């Protein structure tokens, strides 16, 4: 390497690059959370935990080529872990969140092992049944999980050194953004590691990959377990924001809208997960405002947000088949040179960054 290009060289090291990105993003979020209202801070916190879940799912679906309709159930696992540990055992929040990740990782192992054997709609069926079945446990054991009403925890208190008038919403936004940045750091390094390459290899041609010595089942199980851990963290953070874990917070619709966020954001791209999270936060508000701005009969006004949501999903897929991120890449004219991993991968394997 020429001496003048040493900085470029450091940038090429994944760990350095990801650390720099995290620090810059952290600073931006720090400034942002101070500049916006409490309501916007809650939205920021919500977007941050959605990002944690979506990032895990985009690695699983985009790189691993596996579909999961059960991420909502894994979020519930994390949410209930935090609620039980903080509410009943009085654990510190950070430890409870770590435990939430751990528990959902462990729950993810058998599901991932099952998932690695299944393809397409069969995996969709199992994870769909998971999304419907697991929250039902809360009803079955009301003594532990609080039944329909769920479990309530006390809101986290901002530490005293931040000053007396530091708002709770801003503190929650900090916690959630910290979680999201950790997820981003871990996944970014993972995507650019041997495991990321193995995943892409198995997705594009499982037989060729296993002939090259990639352990197909183990790689895919690992991808599922990692996405489960991300979902668990996201669910734990949801409990921090809502101060409540209840079965009604994890309906099938949640799992489905997570999938929507990942695909419309841009499958396989961590930046796409940011767009997806923003979509999940802002689209419902936007459709509600739009419906309220026109005067209509109650029946129509009540259902209009839902209708707009449906139309947006259909239109997005017809107009932007590669999602927002894929659309941006091709707009920027970069699609030829450098695709986000997996955005178009299955159909354009020749365009993978690995194979440049």
């Amino acid at each position, binding site marked *: 390497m020429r001496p003048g290009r040493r900085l470029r060289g450091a940038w090429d090291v994944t760990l350095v690059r990801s650390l720099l990105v995290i620090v810059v993003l952290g600073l931006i979020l720090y400034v942002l959370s101070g500049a916006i209202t409490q309501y916007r801070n809650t939205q920021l916190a919500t977007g941050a935990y959605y990002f944690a879940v979506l990032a895990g799912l985009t690695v699983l679906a985009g790189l691993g080529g596996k579909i999961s309709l059960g991420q909502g159930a894994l979020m519930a696992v994390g949410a209930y872990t935090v609620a039980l540990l903080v509410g009943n055992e009085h654990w510190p929040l950070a430890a409870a969140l770590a435990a939430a990740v751990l528990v959902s990782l462990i729950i993810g192992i058998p599901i991932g092992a099952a998932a690695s054997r299944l393809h397409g709609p*069969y995996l969709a069926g199992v994870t769909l049944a998971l999304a419907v079945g697991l929250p039902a446990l809360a009803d079955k054991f009301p003594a532990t999980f609080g039944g329909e009403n769920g479990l309530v925890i006390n809101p986290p208190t901002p530490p005293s050194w931040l000053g007396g008038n530091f708002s709770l919403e801003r503190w929650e936004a900090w916690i959630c953004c910290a979680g999201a940045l950790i997820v981003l750091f871990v996944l970014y390094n993972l995507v650019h590691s041997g495991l990321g390459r193995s995943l892409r290899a198995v997705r594009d041609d499982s037989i060729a990959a296993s002939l090259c010595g990639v352990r197909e089942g183990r790689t895919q199980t690992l991808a599922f377990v990692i996405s489960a851990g991300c979902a668990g963290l996201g669910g734990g953070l949801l409990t921090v924001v809502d101060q409540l874990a209840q079965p009604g917070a994890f309906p099938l619709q949640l799992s*489905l809208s997570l999938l929507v966020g990942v695909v*419309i954001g841009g499958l396989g791209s961590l930046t796409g997960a940011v767009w997806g999270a923003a979509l999940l936060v802002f689209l419902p508000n936007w459709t509600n405002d739009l419906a309220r701005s026109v005067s209509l009969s109650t029946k129509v006004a009540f259902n209009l947000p839902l209708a707009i949501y*449906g139309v947006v999903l259909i239109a997005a897929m017809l107009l932007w*088949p590669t999602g927002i991120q894929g659309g941006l890449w091709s707009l920027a004219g970069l699609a030829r040179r450098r695709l986000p991993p997996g955005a178009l991968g299955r159909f354009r394997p020749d365009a993978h960054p690995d194979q440049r």
Partner: protein
Amino acid sequence: MTRFLDLTLSGISTGAIYAAVALALVLIWRATRIVNFAQGAMLMITTFIASAVINAGASYVVGFIVALLSGLVFGAVVERVLIRPVEGAPPLNAVIVTLGLYTLLVAVAGMIWGNQPRAFPAAFSLRGYTVGGTTLLFSPNDTFIVVVVLVVAALLALLFRKTSLGLQMRAAAFTPEIARLLGTRVGRMFTLGWALAAVAGAVAGVLVAPSVFLGPNDFDPILISGFVAAVLGGLDSPPGAVVGGIVLGLALSYVSGYEGSSLAPLAALVILVVVLMIRPGGLFSAARERRV
């Protein structure tokens, strides 16, 4: 013993409904390799249309036929307008389109007919048969449900096995390129697959409506169970859909009857996992070679 008999009979009748929805999903999967998450909403719309026709004074039979015909048209239109553009795209895109269609249809139904669930007439009496003094949990209407679903399944089997049209549909689904070279209008076969699927769905909607009531969201659980049944049987196999539907109906009936209905979704998960661990392609899957 009576309880076991009751649970078995009611399991068969709900299983028949699941089988009809599963058949609809299997038809679409075979034609276009898409899981139609909008199926529940599509059959909700056709049932609402039947309800409107019956409320306007027409007989039940006329309402049923109108539901079937509107399903036929509806399925074809959906395939041509919404699904055709995403058929070559990544598989998840079609899933998102069907989810969007589901959301849109639920909203449209709410706008037109309101979100309050309404009653839907049954074809026959809902009072159980009385055998030797005890009343069974199986009514003439349940008999009607089982018979209609079996007839639909038999007609589909005849279509696929015995007619030239069925052969063309199978060919189009199996190898579109070769079928096209041999003169099959592949796109038309796909449209027909969706139309027939919507008819099977419309049958399920009209049959199940008397027991679940009719509202924009009341058919969601039916779709979930139908999907689980289709996966259980193997998405490529119409007989698998029927068997999967009946097996799931029986299993859920026993679990709800003996252990409480809150465990039913978990039971569905356990059954699905156990079956797919043994046969990853469903009960009726054919062994498939793997090629590099």
